[in-house]
């Protein structure tokens, strides 16, 4: 468990149904490290402020099976920095980033790819 303020996906099945049931979602796969925690923090803040209420934010532990879809996805092929953050629209990954991102950067990705 990552123990963040964002809801965590804990299995492959949950991952698949979450992605299929939500039109727009951002899922961050990471560990409890210095590059990951600020991203979870930014997601938690955005959720709390309800600024992007149509978007579901989730985290997933990078080392579990639940994160397999992200770890092995073509869009994350060259990624060498945690966390891997993926932006899903209608069940497809439309954008993905590797390593730490500021809240401003995440908001820019949301505007460009999900809204």
């Amino acid at each position, binding site marked *: 468990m990552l123990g963040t*303020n964002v809801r965590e996906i804990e299995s492959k099945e949950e991952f698949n149904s979450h992605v299929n049931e939500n039109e727009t979602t951002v899922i961050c796969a990471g*560990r*409890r*490290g*210095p*590059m*990951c*925690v*600020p991203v979870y*923090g930014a997601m938690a*803040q955005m959720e*709390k*402020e309800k600024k992007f209420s149509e978007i579901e934010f989730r985290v997933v532990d990078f080392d579990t099976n639940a994160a397999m879809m992200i770890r092995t996805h073509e869009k994350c092929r*060259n*990624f*060498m*920095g*945690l966390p891997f953050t993926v932006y899903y629209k209608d069940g497809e990954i439309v954008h993905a*980033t*590797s*390593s*730490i991102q500021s809240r401003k950067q995440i908001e820019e990705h949301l505007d460009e790819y999900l809204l």
Partner: protein
Amino acid sequence: MMYDVIIVGGGPAGFAAALYSARANLKTLLLEKLFSGGQMATTDLIENYPGFEEPINGFDLAVQMENQAKKYGTEVVNDEVIDLELEGKIKTVKTTGKEYKSKTVILSMGAFPRELGLPGENRLKGRGISYCATCDGSFYRDLDVAVIGGGDTAVEDANYLSRLCKKVYLIHRRDSLRATKALQDEIFKNKKTEIVWDSVITGIDGDESVESITIKNVKTDSETKLKVDGIFVAVGTIPNSDLVKNKVRLSKSNYIITDERMETNIPGVFACGDIREKVLRQIITAASDGAIAAFFAEKHVGSI
């Protein structure tokens, strides 16, 4: 609700201040925007904090510091401080969700890693550029990497990465390292590392991921290309002092200037830990600063 002491930032400085303040029976609130422990919580093994014969994990130490401060009555809230009104007898601390009042404020917002500021750095972040060896090292197994820097973190990173990577270059702009003797001894013995002295990185090449870097010798001005798969940046930190810009006196490098009592130029406003202008930024000095700040905050509360 009126507090005696509000502490902004829950790293070792903040938790030491909280412990001393709560034990002095002051009504104490600590506000932390992310997770307890700050930079310390992201450190794998700490070998130089007294009292632990065996190295302790930074996250574990953070949990213990938080529990100890709470045990004596510190209230800990996870929220980001977004504004401060520090003038006058009563200070106002605004977070994303609430506004608090206090007789004193202790600033312990710490620092974060500095970037290189080179073209392409942002694009290749996570695609060959990393700021955390313990986080991303495993992606570079059996590859060639460069570590940029010459302080404790850079040398520690180079030593750590040499256990995973094929070859590790340590690029340092001077002709001697700033790291502690023990770390230097280890790197000088390490056969997988090569130190490139008197050199700075001037370019990063690669489309999808890092392919090579350009380094310039600062003594001869000559430039060479080095083929590497990754770069680990460890060129120091930047203080988290934006919140108090134009509110308390800062040094040229934006660290908060305090006196020996950890007090800033504003009465009742103290600063401690890495955010303060000082010579040694470590857990033990952060904790020491925190204790002193709380001690004089108590005196200030008593004098109101």
